[in-house]
């Protein structure tokens, strides 16, 4: 069965996504930094689903070696899912340039570098799918997390353009915009229960939307409407708000 490459495989969303794809018979490349930490998870997937799982050492910010890594895969993947993300506290990113730069590099620059390579390959093969996990935070900049949000906004715009370009080649591109998700990244935050998704729900949503060839996925679904409201508030009012 064909391979799916999951980038940023250590996150809770990525792991649940890996399980869903494995359950549906896909073999997996799990790519992350210090990927040997995922040995036990690799075993979990193999025992659960009897699929092949390969670990791939990859630093999303080390753009110069992305091509080498991608070409080193023993079999080209049929799909690529970019889940890697970095969220720091807003005030920290405001004060420390390194934090801002890392936010931009992980969420945007690195993803572009890798997906450029993937897109060229898929376009030539005229097949495959690409999934990028962006965020609702990219739909409008807010004072509480606009540095992370702006990097995700750039990523969303990139995915939108990529979808436009690859349409003719029959390659689908899905932009995923999760709202609150109960993960390690949000541990300690007091999230409203009704608006918060579990990682396995997000994973199932991603699989369903990707298989159906959807363009944009909000998860939970209600976030589409929450963001619709937030993006329609006039700027002269919005700038005074604290949300």
């Amino acid at each position, binding site marked *: 069965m064909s391979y799916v490459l999951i980038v940023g495989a250590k996150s809770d969303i990525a792991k649940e996504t890996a399980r869903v794809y494995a*359950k549906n018979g896909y073999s997996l490349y799990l790519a992350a930094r210090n990927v040997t930490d995922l040995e036990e*998870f690799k*075993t*979990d997937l193999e*025992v*659960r*689903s009897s699929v092949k799982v390969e670990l791939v050492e990859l630093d999303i910010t080390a753009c110069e070696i992305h091509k080498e890594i991608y070409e080193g895969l023993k079999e080209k993947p049929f799909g690529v899912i970019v889940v890697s993300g970095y969220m720091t506290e807003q005030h920290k990113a405001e004060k420390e340039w390194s934090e801002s730069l890392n936010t931009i590099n992980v969420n945007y620059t690195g993803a572009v570098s890798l997906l450029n390579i993937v897109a060229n390959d898929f376009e030539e093969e005229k097949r495959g799918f690409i999934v990028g996990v962006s965020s609702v935070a990219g739909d409008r900049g807010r004072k509480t997390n606009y540095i992370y949000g702006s990097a995700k906004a750039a990523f969303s715009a990139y995915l939108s353009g990529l979808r436009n370009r690859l349409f003719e080649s029959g390659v689908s591109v899905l932009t995923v915009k999760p709202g609150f998700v*109960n993960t390690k990244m949000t541990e300690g935050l007091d999230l409203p*229960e009704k608006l*918060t998704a579990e990682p396995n729900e997000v994973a199932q949503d991603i699989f369903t939307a990707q298989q159906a060839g959807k363009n944009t996925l909000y998860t939970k679904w209600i976030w589409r409407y929450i963001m619709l409201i937030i993006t329609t508030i006039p700027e002269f009012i919005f700038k005074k708000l604290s949300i």
Partner: protein
Amino acid sequence: MSLQSWGMYPTVENEVIKFSSEAELKEKLGTADELIANGNGRSYGDSALADTLVHTKPYDYFLDFDEVTGILDVQAGVLLSEILEGVVKRGWFLKVTPGTKLITVGGAIASDIHGKNHHIEGCFSECVEEFTLMLADGEVVSVKKGEELFLATCGGMGLTGVILTAKLSLKKINSQFINQTTIKTKNLKETFAAFEEYKHLPYSVAWIDCLAKDENIGKSLLMAGEFADDGDLRYKPKSKLNIPFNFPSFALNTLSVKAFNWLYYWKSQDGVSKQRVHFDSFFYPLDSIRNWNRIYGKNGFTQYQFILPKESSFDGLERILEKISQSGKGSFLAVLKLYGKKNENYLSFPIEGYSLALDFKIEKGLFELLDELDAIVVECGGRIYLTKDVRVSKETFEQGYEKIETFRKFRKENKMDEKFNSIQSKRLGL
């Protein structure tokens, strides 16, 4: 986010501890005061509730599966549904499964759950070859069948430690379908006779109409079955319906219960009929409706489950069913089942006899009614199921479980009573 139990009663605030390694749990156990493990929150009452909970569900790796012997090694947070997703396609099934697959392996051991085949296969502990357990001081021990820790932990409601991994012995199947025989009975006498007649089949359970009166008391649909042998193992779990909000509490009035019972009663046209059904609808009819517990309204509900020794089952059940029928608090679900021999575990629920399980919406006057039912249960030499319970008195509980003092002594000697406690264990002095 606080964790609640399936009955949504009582609702409590709690601190939730998560862990991804033994070392991390040991450290967190050391700094915590008292706590209890909580898996997928499917026990109905207060047995997995406390101020501090160890949430074991995220500890959910599959470790190994030997397809020759059928021994599956998993971490305790793995759900039974995940096991089925993995192994049915390869021709394996759980030896023992309860009426929901949405429970963790750790929870299955702690409750020593049982299923429709108790009269043949016994409790879940029968298929547990060994497990690992973190004790009060953080030490991890491997526990094998027959050891004292095994007897205390299987059915021990998480009160001996945190179950970390388990080796389960699975059984071979050659189909995802069940050949089911449905028997319609007019009264309790006929129901009992049908259980005896069909007890050679591995699976059996009866849906009983709790609102039936007088000579119709105990009228039921008995469903008995066994796995088919057609080689069809192409298992694909279906997606679920969702009940997105709590029903207003008037939704479950006598009328709706009557309608529900009616539907089930008339399902089979003649006295005996045969069907071929999927194992998911045979074993887990309610799992297809996510959050079905919300149907009882926001005040929550409880499931009252007791078991009576065989010799006193008939009289006892007739008296209890009559009382329920009179009260008009009839439940949505009433499940009757014949059980086989009891095991050696200190607190496992099953004994040889008949068990009845009913749901009740929490409302005024309910606990008084249940106290009255308790009195009959005690008189008949029966006992109450801790996994479902939220209100039984210490006296009633103690009279049902003859090994409770052995369990208490064991807990005390090993300082487990200082670290592992639930609201239930405090209430009952477990």
